[in-house]
């Protein structure tokens, strides 16, 4: 018999097995070991609560609140159709809609997909107690909440899902897909501090994805809380005062640069759906205080006065005659008052906002000196305020004109420049800084909004000392005081009994539309504690609407004991 042969055949089969095992267990062992680890380890992220934002008095402006959401765990739902049917009956939600939300949110089989958001606490408890809904879970989902809605919309910004290209840039800093990212305002510029560090739990799971044990966990670290320099009472008052008209108001402590209020109107509700507003003609997302670019109008006369005095083109006693207009070649440049102001010296010219006086002063000084001093005042540059996407504005000079337009600078342009018209564009914040620098005897401060990060107080902004003599400052300060505190002052409507207010009005001409109205001022006139700017887009004469609003704000600040 061939028993020996049979033995050889069977033995060779066994050696074949041995060879197979050698390959599988020894040569490929490492990769299979990794696969087996991948089988049993799951990472479940735990999002960090975002830091809260409060105002200078500790009033909460933005916090995180939890909603109860009903979610389905894909791998644990046995019969999805029946389950959704049942849930839609219990909760009264359309089942097609539920399916859509489910399909959209599906990511991993063990990641819960929220299908019905914000259910009541009672409903959550009763759902949790039911045993006939396998695969459902009630989740606590954190939501950002802005307690003052439209009042702080531009200041705080909002949260949005991270863009793919933004993710590319921010991935090294630990950002992930679907992370929420601050968009606009403090949320954007302080995202790093506010977001905290996400934690996570590493689970050992069995074949069904059920947790067997926790391998490790890292607690999420809450983001840093921020305290702002803002006073929400004042901010709210201003918002209601503006009534949604296109306008901007900013109130600052001119000594330190603390922003007490910063309102841009119209605004939007950061808690709601903003998509219908995206193409609105009124541009509600524009922060007019820092991003709006406008001609400063007569408020710029403050800078002209400082330049002309400091460069000794005029003296305090230099006088020009105002007949109501100035003629240069064929062109006639009007003063705002038809009959003219007659003989004017600097202080009176500021008080009455006499154009003709400043035409002369401007022509004597020339555009390049005006531009140089305008830059000293902070025009044409960002202010270092912590809000993102600030506009720089534009300060022209003769060199720019020659390079950009291939033309020489004309005197007519100097005349326009001298009353804050023409190529010059500024933001309301820049105008406020200029007035504050005059108010504080030449200290140009960097405005700031964030007072405290976590427990650390931030340093006040830098201060730049402007090359202005005491004499120059005193003259301009007196002129600005008279603007508000004299019967002929253009800003007399800004006066508030019991307060010493100084200021300057402006009416910036816009081609074919009503002019922009400006008022910039400060109080008290000696050692001021507050300065403010009011800008009304197409608001008419600055002496009227803008001054009146300024008066209301000063009045309110007095009530709030901010003055």
């Amino acid at each position, binding site marked *: *018999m*061939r*028993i*020996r*042969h*049979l*033995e050889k*055949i*069977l*033995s060779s*089969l*066994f050696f074949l*097995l*041995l060879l*197979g*095992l*050698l390959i*599988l*267990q*020894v040569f*490929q*062992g*490492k*990769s*299979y*070991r990794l*696969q*087996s*680890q991948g*089988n*049993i380890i799951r990472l479940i992220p735990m999002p960090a609560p975002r830091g809260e934002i409060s105002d200078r008095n500790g009033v909460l402006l933005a916090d995180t609140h939890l909603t109860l959401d009903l979610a389905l765990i894909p791998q644990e739902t046995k019969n999805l159709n029946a389950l959704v049917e049942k849930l839609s009956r219990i909760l009264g939600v359309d089942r097609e809609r539920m399916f859509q939300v489910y399909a959209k949110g599906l990511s991993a089989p063990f990641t819960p997909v929220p299908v019905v958001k914000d259910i009541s606490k009672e409903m959550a408890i009763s759902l949790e107690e039911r045993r006939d809904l396998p695969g459902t879970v009630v989740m606590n989902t954190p939501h950002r909440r802005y307690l003052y809605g439209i009042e702080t919309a531009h200041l705080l910004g909002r949260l949005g899902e991270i863009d793919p290209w933004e993710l590319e840039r921010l991935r090294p800093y630990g950002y992930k897909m679907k992370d929420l990212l601050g968009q606009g305002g403090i949320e954007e510029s302080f995202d790093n501090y506010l977001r905290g560090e996400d934690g996570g739990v590493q689970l*050992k*799971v*069995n*074949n*069904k994805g059920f947790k*067997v044990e926790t391998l490790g966990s890292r607690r999420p670290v809450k983001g840093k809380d921020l305290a702002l320099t803002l006073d929400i009472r004042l901010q709210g008052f201003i918002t209601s005062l503006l009534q949604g008209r296109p306008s901007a108001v900013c109130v600052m402590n001119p000594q330190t640069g603390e922003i007490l209020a910063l309102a841009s109107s119209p605004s939007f509700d950061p808690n709601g759906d903003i998509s219908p507003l995206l193409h609105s003609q009124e541009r509600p997302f524009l922060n007019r205080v820092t991003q709006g670019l406008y001609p400063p109008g007569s408020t710029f006369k403050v800078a002209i006065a400082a330049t002309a005095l400091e460069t000794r083109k005029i003296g305090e006693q230099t006088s020009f005659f105002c007949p109501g207009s100035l003629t240069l070649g064929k062109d006639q440049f009007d003063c705002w008052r038809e009959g003219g102001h007659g003989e004017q010296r600097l202080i009176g010219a500021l008080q009455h906002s006499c154009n003709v006086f400043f035409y002369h002063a401007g022509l004597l000084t020339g555009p390049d000196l005006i531009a140089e001093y305008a830059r000293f005042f902070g025009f044409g540059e960002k202010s270092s305020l912590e809000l993102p996407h600030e506009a720089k504005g534009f300060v022209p000079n003769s060199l720019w004109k020659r390079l950009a337009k291939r033309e020489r600078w004309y005197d007519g342009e100097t005349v326009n420049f001298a009353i804050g018209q023409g190529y010059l564009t500024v933001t309301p914040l820049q105008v406020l800084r200029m007035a504050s620098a005059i108010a504080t005897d030449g200290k140009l401060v960097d405005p700031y909004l964030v007072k405290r990060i976590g427990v650390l107080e931030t340093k006040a902004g830098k201060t730049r000392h402007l090359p202005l003599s005491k004499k120059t400052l005193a003259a301009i300060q007196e002129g600005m005081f008279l603007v508000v505190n004299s019967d002929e002052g253009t800003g007399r409507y800004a006066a508030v009994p019991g307060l010493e207010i100084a200021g300057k009005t402006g009416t910036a001409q816009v081609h074919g539309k009503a002019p922009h109205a400006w008022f910039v001022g400060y109080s008290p006139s000696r050692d001021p504690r507050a300065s403010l700017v009011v800008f009304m887009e197409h608001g008419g004469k600055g002496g009227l609407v803008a001054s009146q609003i300024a008066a209301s704000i000063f009045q309110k600040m007095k009530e709030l004991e901010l003055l």
Partner: protein
Amino acid sequence: MRKRDPLFWTVLLLCFLGLLSLYSASPDRSFSLRGNFALRQCLWMIVAFSLFWVTFSVDYKKFYDLAYLLYGMNVLLLVLVLLLGRATRLGAQRWLGVGPFAFQPSEFIKITLVLAAARFLSGKDLHACGWRTLLGAFLLAAFPALLILKEPHLGTSLILFPILLGMLYAANLRRDFFLWILFMALIVSPLGWFILKEYQKNRLLIFINPNLDPLGAGYSVIQSRISLGSGWLFGKGYLSGTQSQLNFLPERHTDFIFSVIGEEWGFLGTSFLIFLYLFLVKRGLAIAARAREAFAQLVVAGLTTLLAGHIFVNIAMTMGFLPVVGLPLPFLSYGGSWLTSCLISVALILNVGTEHSR
């Protein structure tokens, strides 16, 4: 005193390793019969070793006389299974209930077929025999195979033919006949495709590409390969295999017990096991070679081929080298009927062995 054959000690060691592995593969390790497979296998061992002793004690020549009778009775039981058998949870009807017990006649047909075929072939000179003898032997296997296929139990049905082939080979069947058999098998196998049930076809397709349906039919193979491979050289340690302990490995106490061992003991454990099995087969065939009568030689050769065939197919299946056909591993896989029939086979082999040395 009888001299104990080393084959006996090998089998005892294998049974002990089986209990060890079943304990690890049990979903419940407490002292309860519900989930503790090691405990249940212990009970089966009492039955199996009793029958082992009976088979060992009886003079093996008795089996020559009873061969056809036992075969006939077993075929009858297979018919009964189809008529009034118990269905498994997967729908196959393989069990016959006797009181609280249930057993699978298909496990025993492997032995009774060997006995019947051995008696059938032992009287003939296979070197000179013609087609009629071959056809007779073929029918002996084909009849129960069809009945088992009907249950359905593809693996057991098909394994009958290699067993027969092994016996024919040992019995000096002319080599050109093997070529003819191979030729016939090649012609018949495509026809076989149409007999297969849908899930059986799936298994074959999955064998070709397990990733066709990684969570469905291909799941077991993928997980089994991960279990074996992740054991690496030294294994993850007894009771510490993540694949088996966390339920990733299906049917881990029956068809895939080898993967459990591979995961927890690594290549060291599996190669040790292979050498144990190799020793068992070599020892069995050595006994066959020394037997005096043709019947005894054929019985031992057939039974050894039976064990070797199961070992090969089962292990190759866990490695993904053969399709998942549901053949258990001798002495290790859980199952009363299977354990009993394995031990009866060994008893018959030892019986012949002791007769020889007597």
